[in-house]
């Protein structure tokens, strides 16, 4: 009956699952969250009255490694999803756990980096750079942490009978969209905050 209607009438639905549409709409909203934070960072770029300044604390090689780690986590996320679609639950679990470990490694780098900056005398209270930098990257780190908790929950849930099956790949698809989005935001942050921060003439 439903199929017959679909032919008679013009489409009144996207055909996407509600939850998939929800995550897309949420990510649109999340863009504005990060947009406002990045805008604040740029408005205050170079406006700090006292140091340390970006070029005093940034260690581009180290952050490049952590960026690479995060980007690789997106790849293992894709591999995990593809394994689930093929029905290879074991590979799905391995790649999912790898994604979590890579994400956690990134967070480890961030903790190390924050500590290092504090050693250099940069705290969120030091100057405008400190306030904007820690709030922006801290919000991003919170997003990654939330993503790790989400993916780990799915990992454990997959051991429940019928928990995650190839038929339920949408659940992973949604988490993966979130994960990739958070990665893309990091590419923007790495470029705008880190790279622009150390290049002279910007």
């Amino acid at each position, binding site marked *: *009956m*439903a199929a017959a*209607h*679909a032919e*008679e*009438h*013009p489409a*009144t*639905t*996207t055909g*996407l699952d*509600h939850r998939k*549409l*929800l995550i897309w*709409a*949420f990510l*649109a*909203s*999340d863009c*504005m*969250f990060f*947009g*406002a*934070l990045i*805008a*604040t960072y740029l*408005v*205050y770029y170079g*406006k*700090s*009255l006292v140091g340390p300044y970006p070029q005093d604390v940034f260690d581009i090689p180290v952050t490049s490694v952590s960026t690479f780690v995060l980007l690789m986590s997106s790849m293992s996320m894709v591999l995990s999803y593809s394994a689930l679609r093929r029905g290879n639950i074991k590979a799905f679990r391995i790649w999912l756990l790898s994604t979590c470990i890579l994400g956690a490694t990134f967070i480890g780098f961030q903790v190390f980096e924050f500590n290092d900056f504090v050693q250099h005398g940069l705290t*969120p*209270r030091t*100057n*405008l750079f*400190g*306030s*904007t930098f820690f*709030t922006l990257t801290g919000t991003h780190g919170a997003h990654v942490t939330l993503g790790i908790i989400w993916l780990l*929950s799915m990992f454990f*849930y997959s*051991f*429940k*009978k019928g928990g995650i099956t190839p038929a339920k790949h949408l659940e992973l698809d949604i988490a993966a969209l979130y994960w990739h989005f958070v990665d893309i935001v990091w590419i923007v942050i790495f470029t705008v905050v880190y790279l622009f921060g150390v290049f002279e003439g910007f």
Partner: protein
Amino acid sequence: MATFALPVPKRPVSCTGVWGWITTIDHKRIGALYGITAFILFVSGGIEALFMRAQLMRPEMALVSPEVFNQLFTMHATTMIFLGVMPLSAAFFNYLVPLQIGARDVAFPRLNAFSYWTFLFGALILKLSWFLGGAPNAGWFGYAPLTGLQANPGVGIDFWVVGLQVLAVASLAASLNFIITIINMRAPGMTLMRMPMFTWMTLVTSFLLILAFPVITIALLELMMDRFYGMNFFVPAAGANPVLWQHLFWIFGHPEVYILILPAMGIVSEILPTFSRKPLFGYPVVVLSGVLIGFMGWMVWSHHMFTVGLGPVANSVFAITTMAIAVPTGVKIFNWIGTMWGGSIRFSTAMLYAIGFIALFIIGGLSGVMHSSAPSDAQQQDTYFIVAHIHYVLFGGAIMAIFGGIYYWFPKMTGKFLNEKLGFWNFIFVFGGTNITFFPMHFLGLDGMPRRIYTYAEGMGWDFWNLVSSVGSFTLAFGVLIFIVNFFYSLIKGKQAGADPWDARTLEWSIPSPPPEYNFAQIPVVHGRDPLWEQKHGGHHTVPVAGGSVGEGHGIHMPQPSYWPIFTSIGLLVGAYGLIFAWPVAVLGGAILMIGIYAWSLEPVNEPDPAHH
């Protein structure tokens, strides 16, 4: 691989009593909860306004202290915008959108319940500030650094910062829900250009909400970081720019204006055709002008900042965009008048309110065009002229339409009419009171009376019009009182209303009043705009738009109620108070939140079986 069992929480079954309301996920009940809560908060905001009008009635009155007056105008505006007009609109979204598009509920019923409870708790955080150390006192726009710790060490701003962030969560969840519902759940045949205008305006408003609220949330987060953790976002001594807050706030704040008025425009666009017995004049143009307003609403924010000193180029650009946005608004007004033109008009209370909306919104719109001109605005900035303008568009506009909407849809929600005689006097007093209160503010403003002053000296020439305005405000309050009487009277003794008491046009009138829990016994099939009207009067379409009568609902499985939406919201409430008072409480709140989210996602899915459609 080993498997393990997860503790699966049971869903409540009962839909009756207090627990039935606490655990409900029915969009109609949630709509009713939104409506009643928001109306009570609207009255509380009105009482705050009456205190101010009483204080300003005569020169040099000492009814309230200057400190309390600051709190009064801050809380009045914050209440009316975030706790009055927005949730009253949300009440209509909740109740009507699924009915208008021929759906059985929204896309995410539990998320919908979560939105309501989070809104309620956010409202409590804001309103209880009166009793927990002082209300916020820096205006609803909360300009930093005035709201910074140095200028404003009191706890009031803390409640404001945290409460608004909680409200933002509620608004985001609700709007995401409505976007998905409208895009994905329309009945067969209901294309976008066949959607009722109210649903259209809900869609545009929801998009504005999900894109505008993040900006204010980040601004509030930054302010919170300053206040709670000693950061420097808005500390001028550290080099911070005091204009940054203004930009962030108004990038949110101007779309917010349209978030307040577009639902009202949607309501009026439903009432006018019904009581003119004509289709909405120029439907596609009305839709497109609404969408255009949604887009252009993002390009005008700096007209709130003409006197900040952004320079002649910025001021000119924003003056031009502001004048331009009056065009789609004007288009709508002409279309509404065109709808009434030549119609056989019935002057029901709902129709009176809709016409009152058009009249007062035109006045508010015209004074808006006056201060869209930057040099003219330089004279009017921060005077009562602006107060007159915003009250004509928000009270004369949004609230008039909301009252009209209540009179129009009350029969659908309760099965009874609101009393029309009381309704007539309700309208007369509200309409008259609005004009007596707010029109003199134009004169006061042009005479130079500044906003937000707690008193004024005698002999400034402001005595008479202030007295008139105060008398008007009590007239207005009396009008609202008549409405409250009418509400309870009609709930008990109201005339019975059938499924379609107004001879209306859209799908919600094709089902019984009040609608059964499952809304539509049979999902309707739509062949054009105004499907119910076509069925009744169109002649050539005989397909029933809805299987209407009670008792046909056997075999329709609706999702069961749930404890977890309110539980999760309580996590936010506890966490929010924890941020203000003591961080261990915030940790507890976070734990409740996490438990709530896990229980929510592990709860057995209980969706209607597709085989039964």
